[in-house]
């Protein structure tokens, strides 16, 4: 034991005690001076006083010296830390150079794990975590209504005329408010006529968002008043694309749906509104939203206007919710006779929540999956290092015996892991720069449209944090695997251990077990996605998409003012299309979107809704939609003949179970509306109208020629023309375009495109997610297999002598094979069991991402388990074969 005194000397020897040293030094000075003065004959008392006087104020001297010394100490300590860090790193590098295969394996594991994580995180960060690109985005909210009698939840929209009512909340809970509606504009002037995505917005919208124009100005109050000259704002994208980034654009005019509008501003680059993720296209042209008498009249009939508001500073969501609920509750009283006896509920949603709603779940599942991959990668490296540590047991024992502290050894492990993780992380970031770009490019439009995904400082910071945590975790594991008591033993055995030590082997086995369990979860998740995709691919779209081309044409009410004009023109186009030699049949349809309807003689508790479509003659034949009951429209229906309708199978099943719906009558709206009753003449097969994996919806078809009350939307009537061709539809595109041009050269055309391609493309999002999740699962499987292989190969090496003895005393190579493979199978089984439990509880969160597959789908679970088990046994088989081939003589004699 050290004595207290020697301890102090020890400290002073190395680090010194500056204060004491200084006192000693000054005392010597005083004594020396005193001696000299006394020797010169001075009185001792006077000599003492004189010595002190000459030395001066000691307090100041002490303070000054202490300051200098402490600073010096600090600098020396820093230098020492730096020096030891350099030493650690140098040792680590030397160590890793000595086992390059381990180093390369570990670096690759990290590069893959960190790279995949960084790529996915860059996307997740952009889409989910980053604040919306508007000042104080937390105060931006959307208001939407729900009509409980009509079923369904909150629409997320209001009826445009109601804006005036909700606007009363300005100054109470909202600072500013605005409405907007997505639409399509026909743009003329400055080149070919073109259909672009646009938005009609209140003049106040940009004030709500607090975004200024990059050039010119945004809308001013009054720009959306009736009767003032039309103004428009361009997005940066269209300004560059169509107008060649014309710096003198402000003040020029463009034709929007045939109306000349003055361009007053260009929005900044990166301004994307309506927000990507809200489900509609980012607008390229903004036009004021006019509350016309027609809009007033559509109050309560037409819902589809988004209401955005900025909360007053300090106003809470609860206050806003109360405010809008109050207004909504009084709408029926304030506007008697408009809403009938309807209940109107309104709610407020944070804009951010709404904007990420659609993709949130799939992104978080991907993030979790990629996190698991990194975890497996870490476990693999950890397991490798553990094995490596076992081999270095002697080195560590010697160093411990020579006085290296456990902390010192842990620090060296940390240095080694840091080198591995940093190298792997750097490689991973390179991989991620490429990966995030690839992700952004390949991601289907709906996911990333309008977002700028890149690996930036924020993402790198997160990566660095992950890497640092990884390094700490994997370095602590082996360091604490060095049991104190093994010290002497290891020295004595000269490293000739019979096995890696039971504790350490158990440690590794636990790691590999965990790995298998995690891989099992990944494989199950990916399996469910793959099964969903396969099921979705095999879904019958309800029509024959082969050899089918489609174009969309929008007719403006300024060119085709009456419904008769519209229908005549549309009929003309169809005739021209049919005249093309390569075309066997052609027809058209126009969506009326979702509307409420009534059934004659039924008093339903909730008003049912159905998707309405106006169809021209030959529609069902052209698309080859089967007729399940009754007949298809004859094509001779007119406004003079009796009103007829067709319904789809889903509607028939839901509302006419066990009854033949043919001959029954339905109408739009409630039973009391002026809309005439229409007789159901036939039932058509269900059609996947939007996507293969979309849910079935009740649908009603009407003859277009019979719809004098036809819905010409506020700005344009849009119809889709379908053309069945003899050969590949692409061959007829030119002729189709020509046919339209010959009818109206100024009409912008969307398409033609191949319907079959569109159908396949409707699964793009699902394919993307499945592809990613599948790749991660494969990565996880490979890593887990490598882990098992590493463990078993190491175990076989460690047990060479034991196996040699077994073989020598009569075991057959087959027995040895069975022994090793059996052990692998046991480990794999336990891992699989744990993974199964994990998967059972975790796949539930994927429910919404699956299609026609239960999250507990037994086929997937059994398949994943068998696959993993097979891989595990195979990974164990290779070392087992090596074990069986051991030559007993040399094994026993070895070292």
């Amino acid at each position: 034991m050290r004595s207290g005194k020697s301890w102090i000397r020890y400290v002073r020897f190395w680090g010194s005690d500056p204060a004491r040293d200084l006192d000693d030094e000054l005392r010597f000075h005083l004594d020396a001076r005193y001696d000299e003065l006394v020797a010169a004959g001075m009185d001792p008392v006077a000599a003492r006083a004189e010595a002190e006087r000459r030395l001066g104020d000691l307090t100041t001297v002490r303070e000054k010296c202490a300051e200098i010394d402490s600073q010096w100490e600090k600098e020396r300590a820093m230098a020492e830390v730096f020096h030891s860090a350099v030493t650690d790193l140098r040792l680590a590098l030397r160590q890793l150079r000595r086992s390059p295969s381990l180093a390369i394996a570990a670096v690759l594991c990290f590069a893959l794990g960190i790279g995949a994580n960084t790529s996915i995180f860059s996307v997740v960060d952009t889409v989910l975590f980053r604040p919306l690109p508007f000042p104080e985005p937390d105060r931006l909210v959307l208001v939407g209504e729900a009509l409980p009698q009509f079923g369904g939840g909150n629409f997320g929209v209001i009826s445009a005329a109601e804006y005036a009512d909700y606007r009363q909340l300005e100054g109470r809970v909202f600072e500013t408010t605005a409405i907007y509606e997505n639409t399509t504009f026909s743009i003329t002037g400055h080149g070919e006529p073109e259909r672009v995505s646009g938005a009609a917005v209140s003049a106040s919208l940009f004030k709500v968002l607090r975004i200024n124009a990059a050039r010119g100005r945004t809308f001013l109050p009054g720009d959306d008043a009736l009767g003032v000259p039309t103004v428009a704002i361009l997005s940066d994208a269209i300004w560059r694309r169509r107008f060649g980034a014309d710096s003198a654009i402000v003040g020029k005019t463009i034709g929007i749906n045939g109306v000349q509008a003055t361009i007053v501003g260009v929005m900044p680059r990166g301004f994307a509104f309506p927000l990507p993720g809200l489900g509609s296209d980012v607008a390229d042209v903004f036009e004021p939203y006019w509350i016309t008498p027609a809009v007033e009249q559509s109050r309560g009939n037409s819902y589809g206007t988004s209401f955005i508001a900025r909360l007053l500073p300090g106003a809470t969501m609860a206050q806003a919710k109360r405010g809008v609920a109050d207004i909504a509750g009084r709408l029926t009283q304030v506007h008697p006779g408009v809403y009938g006896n309807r209940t109107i509920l309104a709610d407020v949603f944070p804009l951010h929540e709404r904007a990420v709603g659609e993709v949130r779940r799939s992104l978080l599942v991907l993030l979790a999956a990629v996190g698991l991959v990194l975890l497996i990668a870490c476990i693999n490296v950890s397991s490798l290092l553990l094995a490596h540590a076992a081999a270095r047991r002697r080195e560590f024992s010697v160093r411990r015996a020579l006085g290296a502290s456990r902390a010192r050894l842990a620090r060296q492990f940390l240095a080694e892991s840091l080198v591995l993780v940093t190298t792997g992380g750097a490689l991973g970031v390179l991989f991620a720069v490429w990966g995030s770009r690839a992700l952004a490019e390949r991601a289907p439009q709906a996911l990333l449209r309008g977002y700028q995904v890149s690996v930036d400082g924020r993402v790198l910071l997160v990566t660095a944090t992950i890497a640092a945590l990884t390094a700490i975790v994997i370095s602590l594991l082996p360091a604490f695997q060095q049991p104190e008591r093994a010290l002497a033993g290891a020295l004595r055995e000269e490293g000739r251990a019979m096995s890696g030590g039971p504790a350490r082997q158990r440690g590794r086995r636990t790691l590999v077990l965990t790995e298998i369990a995690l891989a099992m979860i990944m494989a199950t998740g990916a399996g469910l996605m793959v099964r969903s995709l396969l099921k979705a691919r095999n879904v019958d779209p309800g029509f024959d998409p082969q050899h089918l081309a489609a174009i969309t044409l929008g007719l403006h009410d300024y060119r085709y003012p009456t419904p008769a004009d519209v229908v005549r023109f549309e009929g003309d186009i169809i005739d021209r299309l049919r005249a093309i030699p390569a075309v066997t049949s052609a027809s058209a349809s126009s969506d009326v979107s979702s509307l409420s309807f009534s059934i004659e003689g039924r008093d339903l508790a909730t008003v049912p809704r159905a998707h309405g479509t106006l169809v021209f003659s030959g529609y069902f034949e052209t698309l080859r939609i089967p007729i399940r009951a009754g007949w298809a429209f004859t094509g001779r229906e007119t406004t003079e003949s009796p009103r007829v309708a067709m319904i789809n199978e889903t509607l028939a099943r839901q509302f006419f179970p066990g009854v033949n719906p043919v001959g029954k009558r339905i109408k739009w709206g409630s039973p009391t509306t002026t809309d005439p009753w229409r007789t159901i003449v036939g039932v058509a097969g269900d059609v996947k109208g939007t996507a293969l994996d979309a849910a079935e919806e009740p649908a009603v078809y009407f003859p277009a020629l019979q719809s004098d009350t036809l819905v010409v939307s506020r700005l344009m009537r849009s119809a889709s023309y379908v053309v069945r061709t003899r050969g590949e539809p692409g061959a007829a595109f030119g002729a189709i375009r020509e046919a339209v041009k010959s009818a109206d050269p100024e009409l912008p055309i969307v398409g033609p495109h191949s319907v079959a391609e569109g159908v396949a493309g409707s699964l793009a999002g699902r394919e993307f997610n499945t592809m990613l999740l599948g790749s991660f699962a494969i990565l996880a499987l490979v890593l887990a297999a490598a882990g098992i292989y590493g463990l078993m190969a190491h175990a076989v090496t460690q047990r060479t002598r034991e196996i040699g003895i077994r073989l020598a005393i009569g075991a057959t190579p087959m027995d040895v094979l069975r022994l090793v493979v059996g052990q692998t199978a046991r480990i794999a089984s336990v891992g699989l069991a744990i993974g199964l439990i994990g998967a059972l509880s975790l796949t539930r969160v994927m429910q919404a991402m699956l299609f026609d597959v239960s999250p507990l789908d037994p086929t997937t679970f059994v398949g994943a388990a068998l696959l993993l088990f097979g891989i595990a046994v195979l990974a164990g088989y290779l070392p087992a074969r090596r074990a069986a081939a051991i030559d007993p003589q040399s094994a026993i004699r070895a070292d």
Partner: protein
Amino acid sequence: MANDTVELLQGTLDLLILKTLSWGSTHGYGIARWIQQVTGDVLRIEEGSLYPALHRLEKRGWISSDWGLSENNRRAKYYELTSRGKQRLRAATSTWSVFSGAVSKVLTSTDQPTWAG
């Protein structure tokens, strides 16, 4: 006022210490004695201020210190000029010569300072 004097003295004191130590290692008291002896007690330095200067010089690596025994067997801290200190002394000496030469030229052009020695 006092500050100016100290600032001025500081560099000078450093130079005096370095020069003193160039004769060989000695302790703080030895340095004080030597300077007083050579200057004939004309240049009276406050002995206390010697120690912060010594610590500072040591920190800069111009001198090094070690504990030893004095002539009359007392434990004393001995300072020694390092090779970097020797370089520093050479550089500082020439700077000082230029400086003092220039200053004295200015001063001698008017009248003789009474304290010059």
